[in-house]
């Protein structure tokens, strides 16, 4: 994208019908570190890459609990993300106060989208530079939405945002049809696999990632480092292959996986084994 004479104000259209400031805001999302989300019928998992600036500093917080039934993972300007998370928390708690019940996720994302849209139509504002993956549960089931700086929002079975998110998306595109019926454990494992794809060969450890889960009967919470590391160890020990998708949430790595294939892009061993080629990054 090159600079041009129509990109100074958010309220200036280009002759081609584009709002460049909004598109630049979406670029900011693409530059942020990756965040992914996936959902089954009963659970939603959010995961993000948390890189610290230096060894001395702490990691940036990119996943926020909004309510017991909703959480959000962000990519882009994290300060904008924090502010929007606070807004979301406020909306949820106000709704709970008036109605004694949980704010439906679909309503929250519409409110968020409308808030973002306002910033694309005021000359004294700028668009929010953050993309939000909103995962939550309500009466109509488990939901995953993506809210964009443009004010658009979409519902997804699985999605990834931020830098090198395409690698995660490619992984999830192969497997997303299995997610709906997936068990909680397999969903988390798939999230970790997808997250690893965005690291381009760098080792995945619990120090550089964050994973959070929400499900039926399970309030939104961020998994602690030990749990995450245990899950990482489990599938790295199994020869870096994707787990078989039988409903077998055991914790001993005794699945007779014929290992040996050590390509970073693991060969798929799903039940629908239609001669899937190993993924090259």
């Amino acid at each position, binding site marked *: 994208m090159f600079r041009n004479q129509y990109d100074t104000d958010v309220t200036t259209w280009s002759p081609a019908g584009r709002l460049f400031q909004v598109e630049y805001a979406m670029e900011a999302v693409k530059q942020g570190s990756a965040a992914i989300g996936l959902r089954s019928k009963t659970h939603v998992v959010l995961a993000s890459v948390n890189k610290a600036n230096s060894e001395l500093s702490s990691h940036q917080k990119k996943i926020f609990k909004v309510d017991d039934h909703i959480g959000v993972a962000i990519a882009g300007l994290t300060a904008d993300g924090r502010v929007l998370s606070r807004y979301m928390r406020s909306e949820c708690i106000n709704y709970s*106060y*008036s*109605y*004694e*019940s949980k704010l*439906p996720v*679909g*309503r929250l994302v*519409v409110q968020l989208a409308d808030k973002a849209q306002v910033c694309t139509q005021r000359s004294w504002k700028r668009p929010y530079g953050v993309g939000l993956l909103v995962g939550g549960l*309500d*009466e*109509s089931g488990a939901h995953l939405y993506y809210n964009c700086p443009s004010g658009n929002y979409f519902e997804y079975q699985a999605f990834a945002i931020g830098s090198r998110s395409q690698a995660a998306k490619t992984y999830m595109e192969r497997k997303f049809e299995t997610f709906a019926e997936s068990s909680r454990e397999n969903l988390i494992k798939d999230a970790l696999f997808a997250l690893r794809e965005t690291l381009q060969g760098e080792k995945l450890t619990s120090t550089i990632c964050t994973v959070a889960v929400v499900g039926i009967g399970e309030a939104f919470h961020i998994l602690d480092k030990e749990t995450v590391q245990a899950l990482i160890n489990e599938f790295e020990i199994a020869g870096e292959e994707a787990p078989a998708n039988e409903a077998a949430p055991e914790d001993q790595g005794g699945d007779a996986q014929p290992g040996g294939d050590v390509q970073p892009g693991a060969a798929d061993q799903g039940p629908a084994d239609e001669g899937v080629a190993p993924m090259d990054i």
Partner: protein
Amino acid sequence: MENSSYSLLSSEADSQRTLYPYVTGTSVIGIKYKDGILMVADMGGSYGSTLRYKSVERMKPVGKHSLIGASGEISDFQEILRYLDELTLNDSMWDDGNSLGPKEVHNYLTRVMYNRRNKFNPLWNSLVLGGVKNGQKYLGTVNMIGVHYEDNHVATGFGNHLARPILRDEWHENLSFEDGVKLLEKCMRVLLYRDRSAVNKLQIAKITDEGVTISQPYSLKTFWNFSAFQNPTVGAEGSW
């Protein structure tokens, strides 16, 4: 409307605050039964001690899943219906497949009633809110001071004193529709005999997962031929 909230005791605000009720409805009774909720109320609107209006509908559906019944000041009930209308309208304007259930409506009303009470300008009503959503039955009540609770059977006004003891003895889980109606009619008959603001013209409403139905008005048969009423003055010379 705005200035009434600024000074509680100024004379300007006084003319806008509710001080006493004028046209009132008497008891409402609600019970849970096998398929949902049954609610009953008579159609009387009293003007003090005069039984002035005899076709007042004191129960109305709210949204898809709820039914509200009110006793107390009728004009305040009409105001509450306007609030609920606005609420359900805004809810459906989202057009997102979500809808407010009876629990949500009850809590919203509780907030409204309690907030008005705190401003010393109450809506002079006792409300019964019942409904069914996704198979879950809900029955609650809230009054003008904001006291609210849920139960298997609730009543307002005189119904609390005369009907609820009967319900405590005779209500049970999984009442059939016919048994529920009989039970409510028994309570209403007692109220008709003993509550001077009751009129003999009532409606019964039922709400189930399929929706709300409010019956046409009808009357209860009463019996006045008790032997104690024959020759009432036989034991008291000179009385009438």
